[in-house]
């Protein structure tokens, strides 16, 4: 008897109290919502650190441009 298929097809979800083995068999371990392990922080090379500082500068400039555009748009919309 194919317990795996019968469990999945014939029983409503609320009845899955007897066995969840089939879920463990079907899903990969890190697909289980409660079982994910964190990868941890990536070690950043010097190049990527420089890139991130560039991104920080970019974000600051981006915020300035957006505020400026909001200011321009405010006057156009008036």
């Amino acid at each position, binding site marked *: 008897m194919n317990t795996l*298929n019968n469990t999945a097809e014939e029983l409503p979800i609320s009845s*899955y109290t007897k066995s*969840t083995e089939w*879920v*463990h068999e079907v899903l990969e371990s890190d697909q*289980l*919502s*409660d*079982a994910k392990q964190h990868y941890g922080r990536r070690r950043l090379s010097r190049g990527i650190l420089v890139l991130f500082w560039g991104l920080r500068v970019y974000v600051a400039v981006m915020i300035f441009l957006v505020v400026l555009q909001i200011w321009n748009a405010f006057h*156009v919309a008036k």
Partner: protein
Amino acid sequence: MSGHPFQSLDGSNRVTVEDVKRARDRLQVRRHRSAGRWWMVLWLLVGPGILVMLGENDGPSMISYATTGASYGIGFFLPFIALTFVMAFVVQEMTVRLGAATKRGHAELIHERFGRFWGFFAMADLVLGNLLTLVTEFIAVRAGLGFFGVPPALSVLGAFVLIVLIVSTQRYWTWERIVLSFAIFNLLFVPVAILAHPVSSEVVRSFFTWGPIAGGVTGGFILLIMSNIGATVTPWMLFFQQSATVDKGLTPADIRHGRIDTALGAVIAAVAAIATVLATTPLFLHHIDASNFEGADFAKALVPYVGNVGATLFALGLFEAGIVAAITISLSSAYAFGEVTNRPHSMNSSLREGWPFYAVLIAAAGIAAVLVLIPNAPLVFITLIVNVIATLAMPPAIVFLLLLVNDREIMGEYANRGLSNFFGIAVTVFLILAGIFYGIVTVFPHLLPS
């Protein structure tokens, strides 16, 4: 975190309602794959790619394509639009691999690998940009249904109720299939294009000659190119497709189908986009000034050339573009929120388990809907700034995408290699530069030649 845990026999990892629903879907894939029914496997696995591409053909995009057709007719922009979808495929394919290999969403990976600051920045930036974009989607819904005389309040509230109903299925598979059935109506612009009777030989010639360019290379032409490039891939697309890939339960074994799904989406979306350009070429040929047209204006202006049927289809297409984008964009906000705050974030979550996720999704759509209905709300103001925010927010998102997809610690054998990195980096750099340029010239328009 889990509201309805199911205890496994040996007391090991708890299994949630979300896990059980996802496992059910995966069991179907496994069964058909074992039986060699490739067509069923493909049917089961398509979804995120098609939805993200057709979601990107949102209200403002379709209006942009309509404006392009009305301003430039058949010529340069037909092959150019096709090229933009090729670039979109290159970028979006990376999100499929990321999601399938790591089983984590985009915001989740940024948060885990690069820290809290960048994780929360990515999420906040996305949610804010999405909120403003959602306003433009509800404007498109209002415009589309306004053609049929539907009062704005009824069309916007009706669209919001529809979004809530679809979300309430609490089942990723059901949600996906319902939205796909809406999204396919993006092809409504194809019969409108046929009714516009474009000259086939001119259409074919434009793909070989990339011309003509009506009016020559002007500041307006450059701006339209930059805005089209900048709108090719927007941040929500990266977050949505990767998270939906994870929510759907794709694994590395499904990457090939994920690529097919993304390619299918790009082709369908490109066909719809090009059809929209062709649909409005009668306005170009008859020298109708459509520069200030809004959504429903196009439908009304097309009546003499494509008939009432064509105009009706155009308006319905606009409604579809707005509603599908509203659904997918609000979901991308909810995914990012759940991933960064470490809460359940799945369309398979029960209401009890995932109430913050559903609350963010519904709130995102609800706030945008309310804004559209407020009398004298600054909608023009929002429309003017949303493009700038979306294009300027793209570079950080796409830089993180490239860093993550090249991270061999998490990607293993699925990391970018030589050729994929070449195309990935080339497209990324091109999109970043175009986006920055567009953002700058929008804020400082005098920099462009008149």
